[in-house]
């Protein structure tokens, strides 16, 4: 035997490209196979500068904290004090963002109403009109006025507690709603006045006004339609927050709703979700600045949203100048979305609990983002509402904990001075100093 043994040559490990990573490659393959863009639900998935990049300073020798048990820390908020005859009083500044019936099941809408009502906050309709389920179970209901005007009618307008004129959403500023055929059930089709089963894309521009001067007249009409009772909100996706806030105020808004790019959606092109708009962290200060420049900070209330997950996010948003926040994705998770309980089914859909985002397909194992009656029946609105109420209470308690530590007797007394940033990006965007320095990039060099 004279077999020559070559010396063993070590193999390099397979190495993925940072540019062409496995996800990117799978997307190229998907695009090549289908010829159509990827649509999904949820918000941005990549890492962005966010509230985690800020910390509170807490009390020290120069500041004293409040006693947890004895000293009160208020959490209530009044929205719509500028022009509305009947402003809204909420016990907690955490509101439920607009999510449509259509995108969500009737049971999910009912659960949102139950949970929010239990803790004294509001829910919001969406791109599909008002359902009796949500009006019945939401003590305070904000009615969205969208470009599509699906289901819009005078009777419902008058039943609402506030009206939210939607110009845009953080997930897709400049884009319209989208509801694919699988979710256009008989009831959804009837409410929207559309053929069943079509892939429905809502208009992105309002049909009867363009620009701030028209918006002012539209708001006048909405007030005249509703006896000047209801607060009028204007919702914008975060892109040019200083000017959008100023123009919304000029047009007569009582409340400005500002939704950052992390904000969820029921269905939009992935490219839109990940590449349009700015993070909420970067949007709050310019919006507050606009209100301050107009002498209307706290008179026109500011609600912010986009990736709010816990009481720290709530407190930080408020310290930067917001009057309240709104949650979408987190509320759905509290109801049971992406629960490990359904792992087997998520696997069958080619995903896993925690990553499921095909909310547009209507196959949600948790019965939330679906119109399939069998799946929808899985969500018990009473129990899910209870979970949401628990979660909202935790958000409020956590925010209070942080406010007390900063010596604040009300969440509204939190201020930028209570915060520092852990990264230069966050310092620049939130306009608070980099921790351990007095440096705010862009402010003092």
């Amino acid at each position, binding site marked *: 035997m004279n077999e020559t043994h070559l010396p063993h040559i070590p193999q390099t490990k397979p190495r993925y490209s940072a540019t062409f990573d496995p996800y990117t490659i799978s997307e190229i393959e998907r695009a090549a196979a289908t*010829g159509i863009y990827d649509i999904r639900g949820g918000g941005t998935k990549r890492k962005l500068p966010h509230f985690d990049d800020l910390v509170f300073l807490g009390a020290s020798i120069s500041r004293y904290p409040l006693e947890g048990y004895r000293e009160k820390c208020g959490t209530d908020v009044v929205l719509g004090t500028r022009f509305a005859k009947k402003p809204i009083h909420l016990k907690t500044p955490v509101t439920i963002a607009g999510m449509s019936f259509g995108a969500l099941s009737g049971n999910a809408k009912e659960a949102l109403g139950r949970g929010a009502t239990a803790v004294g906050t509001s829910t919001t309709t969406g791109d599909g009109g008002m359902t009796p389920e949500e009006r019945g179970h939401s003590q305070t209901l904000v009615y969205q006025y969208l470009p599509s005007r699906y289901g819009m009618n005078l009777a419902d307008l008058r039943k609402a507690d506030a009206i939210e004129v939607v110009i845009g959403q953080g997930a897709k500023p400049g884009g319209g709603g989208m509801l694919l055929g699988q979710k256009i059930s008989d009831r959804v089709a009837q409410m*929207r006045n559309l*053929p069943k089963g079509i*892939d429905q894309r809502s*208009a992105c521009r309002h049909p*009867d006004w363009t620009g701030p001067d028209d918006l002012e007249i*539209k708001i006048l009409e909405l007030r005249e339609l509703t*006896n*000047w009772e209801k607060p009028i909100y204007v919702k914008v996706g975060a892109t040019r927050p200083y000017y959008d806030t100023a123009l919304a105020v000029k047009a007569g808004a009582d409340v400005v709703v500002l939704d950052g790019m992390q904000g969820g959606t029921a269905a939009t092109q992935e490219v839109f979700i990940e590449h349009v708009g700015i993070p909420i962290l970067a949007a709050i200060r310019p919006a507050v600045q606009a209100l301050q420049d107009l002498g209307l900070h706290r008179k026109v209330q500011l609600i912010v949203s986009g990736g709010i997950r816990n009481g720290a996010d709530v407190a930080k948003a408020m310290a930067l100048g917001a009057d309240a926040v709104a949650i979408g994705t987190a509320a759905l998770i509290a109801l049971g979305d992406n629960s490990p309980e359904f792992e087997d089914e998520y696997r069958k859909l080619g995903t896993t609990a925690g990553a499921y985002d095909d909310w547009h397909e209507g196959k949600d194992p948790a019965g939330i983002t679906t119109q399939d009656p069998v799946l929808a029946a899985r969500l018990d609105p009473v129990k899910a509402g209870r979970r949401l109420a628990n979660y909202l209470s935790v958000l409020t308690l956590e925010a209070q904990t942080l406010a007390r530590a900063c010596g604040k007797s009300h969440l509204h007394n939190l201020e930028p001075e209570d915060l520092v940033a852990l990264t230069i990006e966050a310092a620049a965007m939130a306009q608070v100093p980099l921790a351990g320095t007095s440096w705010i990039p862009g402010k003092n060099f």
Partner: protein
Amino acid sequence: MSAAQKTMENTVTFDLAAAPLRELNATLQGLDASTNQTAWSVHNPRGGHAIAVGLTAPIAVTIEGHAGYYCAGMNDGATVIINGSAGTGVAENMMSGLVHVKGDVSQSAGATAHGGLLIVDGNASARCGISMKGVNIVVKGNVGHMSAFMAQSGNLVICGDAGEALGDSLYEARLFVKGSVQSLGADCEVKEMSAEDKTILVDLLAKAGVDAKPEEFTRYGSARKLYNFHVDNAGAY
């Protein structure tokens, strides 16, 4: 109510030069279905916005002059006659009732309206019947570009000509045009006039007092090619 005066014909006249819009709308909105005071006349509208919006009582309101934006907006059961022209969004989101404009109308007439009848004796500007959801609209003159854009249901009768991109991204609304069409929008095509179409058209022409025969009109509707995402339609998205 100082601005309102009753005439011999039992019509209440409301003068917008003497009292604010809020008073007019609050008065008209406050009437219920059983009111005996069914005839109203509004003087000096002077192009004001949001006149006679949100009416639910079966009353007849005549506006003596030109109205601004959103006149008769969200009307639900009233008859509103404008003896003049109307601005953007006349009868927007009407639920039921009749709105009759004797002059011309600006953009987005009858936008998103769910029901009722809108008659325009003159011309309508761009986006007439945009996103309409069940309303009937008869325009005796011409309509501007992008009319019936994303129109969902209902009927739009155009006795004159239509501008560019008529019926773009149309759903199930029926369009009837007597004159020429500058161009059709995406997914809008000529359809055969069915017996049902004819009945609808004859009825609307009669209601609007138009002396024309259904045979003089061409019927347009949705080709329904954009109803579901398809790679071959990418250019239209």
